[in-house]
């Protein structure tokens, strides 16, 4: 056992794509899907919900409170709640992670809209924009940098949280940790950690790139 090296390259080569459902490449793919689906779903829900919170101020407090409670629950608790509903499926991981994403994205949308300078909103009104067009053509585009910043946080945390799903066999690369601990075999653990970090860095990089392309007008770009 003390002879066991930190990493066995031959094991990686044999297990990268061997046709089994636990091949590293399959786990990687699962991880990506399980991590991004919640962020995507979260964004789709957060934009209208965030808008509603801005439109009806009283809605924001309870929504934020609910999201914070969700966020503070250990992910395991959420998983076990959904386990009893959705069983050993991907949904059992995706649904709680969507709540986590929402806890970050709803405030991001609300803060984003709040970041629209009052003078900009006022002048849009004064130019003769009707409310829907003003929202679509002025307020939402101006809110984009703040929303994207939230999206970065949500994406990275989602990528790392997926691993917990390994406890029900839906943890993507997280499954490698369980495998490694059970066998006191380090290679899968190292592979899992490295791939998750690479994935997170890559996703964040892509979002930064998107930010630059989408908001060339953003002042923040000069300072970051």
């Amino acid at each position: 056992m003390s002879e066991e090296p930190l990493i066995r390259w031959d094991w990686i080569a044999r297990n990268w794509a061997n046709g089994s459902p636990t091949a590293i490449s399959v786990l990687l793919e699962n991880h990506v899907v399980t991590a991004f689906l919640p962020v995507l779903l979260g964004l789709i829900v957060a934009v209208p919900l965030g808008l509603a919170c801005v439109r009806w101020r009283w809605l924001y407090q309870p929504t934020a409170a609910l999201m914070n409670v969700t966020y503070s629950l250990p992910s395991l608790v959420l998983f076990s709640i959904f386990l009893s509903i959705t069983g050993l499926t991907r949904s059992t991981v995706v649904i709680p992670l969507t709540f986590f994403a929402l806890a970050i994205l709803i405030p991001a949308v609300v803060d984003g809209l709040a970041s629209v300078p009052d003078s900009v909103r006022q002048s849009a009104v004064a130019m003769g924009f009707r409310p829907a067009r003003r929202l679509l053509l002025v307020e939402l585009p101006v809110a984009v940098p703040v929303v994207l910043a939230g999206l970065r946080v949500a994406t990275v945390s989602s990528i790392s949280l997926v691993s917990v799903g390994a406890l029900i066999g839906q943890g993507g690369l997280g499954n490698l940790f369980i495998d490694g601990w059970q066998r006191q075999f380090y290679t899968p653990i190292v592979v899992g950690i490295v791939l998750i970090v690479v994935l997170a860095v890559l996703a964040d990089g892509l979002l930064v790139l998107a930010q630059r392309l989408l908001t060339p007008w953003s002042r923040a770009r000069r300072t970051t």
Partner: protein
Amino acid sequence: MITFEGVTKRYRDGTVAVDDLSLEVPTGAITVFVGPSGCGKTTSLRMINRMIDATSGRIALDGQDVREIDPPTLRRGIGYVIQQAGLFPHRKIVDNVATVPYLLGWSRKKARARAMELLELVGLDASLASRYPFQLSGGQQQRVGVARALAADPPVLLMDEPFSAVDPIVRASLQDELLRLQSELRKTIVFVTHDIDEAVKLGDTVAVMRVGGRLAQMAGPATLLTEPADDFVREFLGRDRGIRRLSFISAKEVRLSPAPSALVIDEDGRPLGWRTGDGLAAYGTFNPETDSLRVALDAALLSPNGIAVAVDEAGRVRGVAGRDAIDELLAEHAPPAAGPFRDAGSPRAAGSPPAGSPPGGSGAGISEGVPT
């Protein structure tokens, strides 16, 4: 013409921002609303384009009640400029300027061509068109704000402290630019400021408001300076009213004398200085065609002998005016027997109640002048 008839605005919290305001904003001229902070200038302005709706009273645009017009439609026909410019940060300058044309459904090409025309009109280089607002200085942003407000050629322009946030030098050049534009465009402009000097410089008519949204006095700037309606207006106008008033009297009628030999002139006829025992002394010049009496007096004060040099556009000497010549013109334009007891009879704000109205009314200039 924009007409306020007994307009009152009471906010939900009970604040009366504008109280029974009645006045007329003439077509094709600059009308300035001036008064201390919180006196209801912004509220008054925004009731014109219905960003705020009046609680009672009526505002009419060329006779039509603004409340009969759908707000976005109304606003597309009224330019609006604010202090922080309020440019859209995510749109290039050219598209910022083209905002209202786009809203009106112009083609992109036509709207952009119009925007480029306007950038030139407000004195901005065409190379700025493809920049974003954050890449412009405050003064440039303010010019873009003016261009944007003018893009669809609205007959009415509302300006809310548009030059208050820029430094004094830029402010002065923006003011001059506005006057130049206005001499070409002849828009109906309502200009809001808390700066009385700006009001007097820009306004064809100045409406002085006091806190509580009441009209204290409405008059041309020269009249305002000579005949403030009451202590509030007098205090608001500040010191030097007498001197500042001279800005509104043309120096055209100053009697010129031939230049004395003591004035040294170069071969082109331009002044070099006053000959004194030990060389040339400073001199002051004014152009009778374009300058005011204030400039002429200033020029006289700058010369050791109290004689102002009159020059033409090219700077060539046309004659001189001594203090006696300037005094003659001053006497001609002396204020009509100014004094506290004259104030009751001075021109007063449109719509203000006649003398003898109940105390506390918005009557201009009656507070101290009514014999008891």
